[in-house]
């Protein structure tokens, strides 16, 4: 892990480059169940934003509905947030981002929120390659409505109620790669180190960065027979490769320049170094990334890490040719063509 830790070491008062302590990235007290994976992810988000020296008010956090979608209230208290309706975070995020391209957008969703009711919005925000980090806190169930299976629950996997899931599961990472996301990763709420690294890379990436994080629901889906339980994930997790995230500001140290790693430069100048790639997988090639996922599935493994990365991906604004100036800052001057032109328009309707 290579994210920068500040030199000062008073855990409480530790300040980042902006002079903020970690506290200033926290939110309200969580009302989730004790031990819920989602809280670990919130905590990782806090750490990431703190360590990346992001100005909290330049971040926008958005969500749908569910336990997972409540978390934006529990991190980044100084950021604007939008807890929208079930499954519709992507469209709201699209609108917000179109209005102001200068902010950082972090969307949080659940597997019910994204893979069921929201799968259409998910597929299409991915297709638009909206510049945002899209996190799914994936517990294979509907936590907030008390534990029904979700569409990411793996076929055959047994939930608390005991009956095995009968339908095919939806692999959101595979869908994201196929659909046009420029960055796709999978993590586990129990592996904070990896989460932090991939979230940093996701934020540095321009375009849609999809991060699926397996996040056990301790109340309804944490029995060992569930493929979304702590035990199961720990036993079946397989990293596609190890990787390092090197922020732009940091000087690249020599141990990263050896031949065994592939450096990929992200939009903000940061670098991601992929090491120990398995059997020649090229994570910058969709077909190869998808094949890896399919293979892992056949072997009942959960592949984690950065699964796909298109360093040249173009986000919605670039593709549509929107002004570099945020649209929400424009006034009559830029926007109103004026009466003289209107008179001309009138003439063309005579």
């Amino acid at each position: 892990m290579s994210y920068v830790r500040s030199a000062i070491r008073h855990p409480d008062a530790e300040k980042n480059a902006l002079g903020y302590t970690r506290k200033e990235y926290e939110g309200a007290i969580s009302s989730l169940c004790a031990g819920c994976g989602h809280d670990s992810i919130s905590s990782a988000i806090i750490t990431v934003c703190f360590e990346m020296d992001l100005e909290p008010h330049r971040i926008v956090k958005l969500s749908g509905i569910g336990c997972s979608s409540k978390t934006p209230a529990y991190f980044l208290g100084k950021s604007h947030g939008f807890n929208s309706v079930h499954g519709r975070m992507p469209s709201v995020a699209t609108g917000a981002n179109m209005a102001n391209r200068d902010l950082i957008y972090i969307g949080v969703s659940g597997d019910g929120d994204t893979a069921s009711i929201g799968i259409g919005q998910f597929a299409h925000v991915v297709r638009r390659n909206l510049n945002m980090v899209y996190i799914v806190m994936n517990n294979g169930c509907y936590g907030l409505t008390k534990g029904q299976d979700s569409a990411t629950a793996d076929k055959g996997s047994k939930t608390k109620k005991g009956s095995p899931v009968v339908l095919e599961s939806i692999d959101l990472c595979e869908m994201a790669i196929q659909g046009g996301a420029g960055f796709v990763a999978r993590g586990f709420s129990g592996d904070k180190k990896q989460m932090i690294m991939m979230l940093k890379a996701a934020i540095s990436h321009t375009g849609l960065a999809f991060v699926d994080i397996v996040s056990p629901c301790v109340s309804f889906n944490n029995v060992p027979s569930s493929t979304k339980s702590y035990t199961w994930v720990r036993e079946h997790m397989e990293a596609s490769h190890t990787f390092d995230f090197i922020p732009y500001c940091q000087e690249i140290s020599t141990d990263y320049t050896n031949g065994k790693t592939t450096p990929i430069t992200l939009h903000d100048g940061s670098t991601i170094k992929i090491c120990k790639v398995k059997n020649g997988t090229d994570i910058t090639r969709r077909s190869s990334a998808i094949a890896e996922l399919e293979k892992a599935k056949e072997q009942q493994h959960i592949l984690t890490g950065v699964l796909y990365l298109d360093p040249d991906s173009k986000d919605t604004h670039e593709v549509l040719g929107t002004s570099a100036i945020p649209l929400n800052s424009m006034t009559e001057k830029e926007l109103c063509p004026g009466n003289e032109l209107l008179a001309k328009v009138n003439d063309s309707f005579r």
Partner: protein
Amino acid sequence: MKIRRVNDFVIRFANVNGSGSASANDLLAKTIFRLGVPINPYNIFPSNIQGLPTWFEVRISEKGYLGRRGGVDFIVAVNGQTLRQDYDMVQPGGYFLYDSTRKLPDEYRREDITVIDIPLTRLCNEEFSDPRLQQLLKNIIYIGAVSALLDIPLDTVSQAILKQFKKKPKLAKPNIQALKIGFDYACAHHSNSCGLSIRSSTAVGDRILMDGNTAAGLGALYAGATVVGWYPITPSTSVIETFERFANLYRVDKESGKKNFTVIQAEDELAAIGIAIGAGWSGARAFTATSGPGLSLMTEFLGLAYFAEIPIVLVNVQRCGPSTGMPTRTQQADILASAYSSHGDTRNVLLFPRDPHECFQMTADAFDLADRLQTPVIVMSDLDLGMNNHLCEALHWDDKRKYDRGKVMSAEDLEALTEPWGRYLDVDGDGICYRTYPGTHPDKGAYVTRGTSHNEYAAYTEENQAYERGMKRLMGKWNTARCLVPRPEITIRKKGSKIAALYFGTTTDAAREALDQLESSSIFINEMRIRAYPFQKEVFDFINQHDIVFVIEQNRDSQMKILLSGGCRVSPGRLIAVTHFNGLPITAIIIRNQIHTALLNRKLKQQ
């Protein structure tokens, strides 16, 4: 007896869609309009792309009646599929022009109409050999013939063709040639057979001929809309397409070539309005447009925008429901669905434009209202208004006009505060609170917007008093809205008359004409045009000043009447429904007849 009239008749063209007839017919309508004669063109088209019957009807009215009149004086019947139907619908004394390349069947034996035979196909094929051109030019030939029959100078129509093909002058030539063929043929074979004619006039004045969707799109452009989320649906599609077309002309930065707007074709209507909401929340002016099924799909999000108080504009171009209904027919039948959209105690502000000029105005105003009221504002257009050209006042924009962005806190405002800021804190009693855009200030003014219950400081709460306070404040805001929306337009035809009529939107023209007619038989009916919901006190005052009030509208269920009654301020029996809902625009005759019958029944009862 032939109908003989100048500048006052109805002509209809019966065609097959996708055959190029639309632009030919339009050419004639434009020509008459440019001669200064008021017209009301109306297009009846099927919900498919090619090969089915379509009609184009032009009402010509020197007096300036712009509603559909009903009845056809002159029909140009060039669609074999509907020949009989077209033949039968001509008014006694009227004219029936057909393509006599194929003889009219024997059983077509009306004596009360004038049949004008022109061998369109033959004339066309003799002159032109390119089959693609043949189809198009046959249309122009009949336009030539009709021009001759209506005494329109050949030159005037030629000018119109030249204007139309300004950018493709090569195409102008065969068109003018075709025009002349038809014109000459009619002169040669049917001179003096037609009693209808067009004479140039000054009645049009400064007015323009525009469709409501174009006007609404322009309204949004002028009002500074920057983010659009939409999903194609007839008849609202062209609102967005116009916006985008003009934005590409007037909103692209000269230097960078970058766009000062963005139009996102979403995956469906839920996403379309979601995009508008996200952008409205973030401080851009945002809108969407839809029709029928799209409105239904936006229901959940409309409730969110109401409760979380996010400004958006929705242009609802109503079509004939329920369900998919008749997508290419008109109605005013989404009133309840729009006003009461979404579960729980939700209500939405509605505006009712009557013509393209008001589509422009009200769409622009809708953005100010939405920002001021921090709530969705729905512009209630319809297919008739949106997709047909209407004669209307030229558009105007006051260059001194400033966008009213409503109560928004800047970083400086936040700095200057002495009390803690609350997103849902009503500091001045109008029910509207100050909002902030994301990213405004490093440590002030951030909050989480949500559709769940929240207190004055935007914190999630399940406390019942906090919820209740919020809901009451929203009711207060609704009363503020009542003061801000456009007032009704009231015309007193006779002081003290106890009979009145009210109408709105596209019912206006036909209603006024009907009331004029009734006035000419000494029935004086005062009138009110409703322009917005929530209704002001004067709406009810007007109603209560009369014994009976006809509520004229284009839906089955008398939805406006229901909406008016919901306030519980009107006596039973006072409001009388006048409805028309078969998908074609309402006419003066329909209104007059229904009012007549109702008045008669009333008299009988009173005797």
